[in-house]
């Protein structure tokens, strides 16, 4: 139960945060990454490139204030995406987080080379790519936060509680829930949506 509860808090807050500004279609990105990983699919990579490269370019231009270096960040980051796509594990986090980590690490090493003249590439020791798993079996993680979320869920109307608990505690799909509660899928979806809006308000998550 402990395990389920602690992943619950992550999941709910994570869900709210990502639905706050979720213009990124993670499923598409995952599909492209998978295509690169399994069949070295060049057109999928091209999609990834046109989605991320302009953003990476903007970010690194402002960080490095040097066009050549900014291009180097794009080149290095996207090369790593190509070469390491098979190491991306969807179950361990969003693809955007994975690519962000690569970009941050590449930029860090370039900056360090610039400032300290060191090519020790420490970024992978500081932020190891293999460690990107979420810690969800941490028994003494955030008790307070969990308790808060659990008590907030109890404030929801009974029918919303049912869907929220089924969805997050028991990790049931919306279809499974519909079957389990003997409701149309549409009803489950709208209850879930209402419950999330309400939870967001109760938890004080701002729409910044």
């Amino acid at each position, binding site marked *: 139960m402990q395990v389920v509860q602690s992943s619950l808090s*992550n999941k709910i*807050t*994570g869900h709210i*945060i*990502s639905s706050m*500004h*979720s*213009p*990124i*279609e993670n499923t*598409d990105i995952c599909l492209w990454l998978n295509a690169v990983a399994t069949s*070295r699919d*060049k057109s999928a990579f091209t999609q990834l*490139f*046109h*989605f991320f*490269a*302009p*953003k990476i370019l*903007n970010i690194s231009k402002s960080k490095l204030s040097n*066009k050549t270096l900014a*291009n180097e960040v*794009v*080149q290095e980051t*996207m*090369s790593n995406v*190509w*070469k*390491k*796509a*098979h*190491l991306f594990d969807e179950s361990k*986090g*969003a693809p955007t*987080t994975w*690519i*962000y*980590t690569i*970009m941050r*690490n590449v*930029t*860090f090493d370039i*900056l*360090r080379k610039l*400032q*300290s003249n*060191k090519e*020790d590439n*420490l*970024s992978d*020791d*500081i*932020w190891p*790519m*293999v460690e990107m798993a979420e*810690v969800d079996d*941490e028994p*003494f*993680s*955030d008790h307070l936060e969990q308790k808060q979320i659990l008590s907030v869920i109890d404030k929801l109307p009974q029918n919303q509680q049912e869907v929220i608990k089924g969805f997050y505690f028991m990790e049931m799909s919306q279809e499974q829930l519909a079957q389990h509660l003997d409701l149309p899928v549409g009803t489950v979806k709208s209850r879930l949506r209402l419950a999330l809006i309400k939870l967001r308000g109760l938890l004080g998550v701002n729409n910044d």
Partner: protein
Amino acid sequence: MINHHPKIELLIQYVNGELPASISAGIKIHADLCPKCNNQIIELTKHAAETSFAQEDTLVGIGSEVLSLKGDEPEYNFDAQSMINNITDMPAETELKVDDTPVSITLRGVEYELPNVMKHMSLGKPAQIGKLSRSRILLDEGHIHSSLLRIEAGGSIPEHTHNGYEITLLLEGSFKDDMGEYVAGDFIVLDGKHQHQPMSELGCLCYTVVSDSLHFTQGINKLLNPIGSFIY
């Protein structure tokens, strides 16, 4: 029990990759021992990724965005197609090898296993004054100096203040000053406002990052000035 954590501002800069390697490594050492900060870092990274990659063009609907990007070619100041060609000519990287061989250091005959994050950092030759042993971490960060510092049982550092800041990450053992007792994993930040005289009853090993030389405050200790440059 760990009582001293890096401030949230520091964690945000860490996640953004904006801190020097020395301080970033200190936070990594702490996070490996502190599930609370580790989880916070995971959340902050997720958040940083979302805000970095979500931009104004998000006004376009979720599904259509990708399609519309395909239509209007994004602007680059380089030849995107040839970059894509170059990249896709590269072979996939074989599985990442995780090198778990522990690195260690021997100070006055005592061998200490060092945190993983120090795997690729080179260490200077150990030096000693009294009950203090120090080995520089050769990171070449200008006025920021990092060291491994060992205080032998019963040893202490004369009372001092800091011109800049001093970050101490206790790796093994414990020490105390007038503000309390510290244990392994504690992330301690001191600046010019603080004065302290750390002493260790049973001995300890610390990872330290100091941004400016220390200032000794007690009369007789001014004679001990070599220690100032020793610890800095």
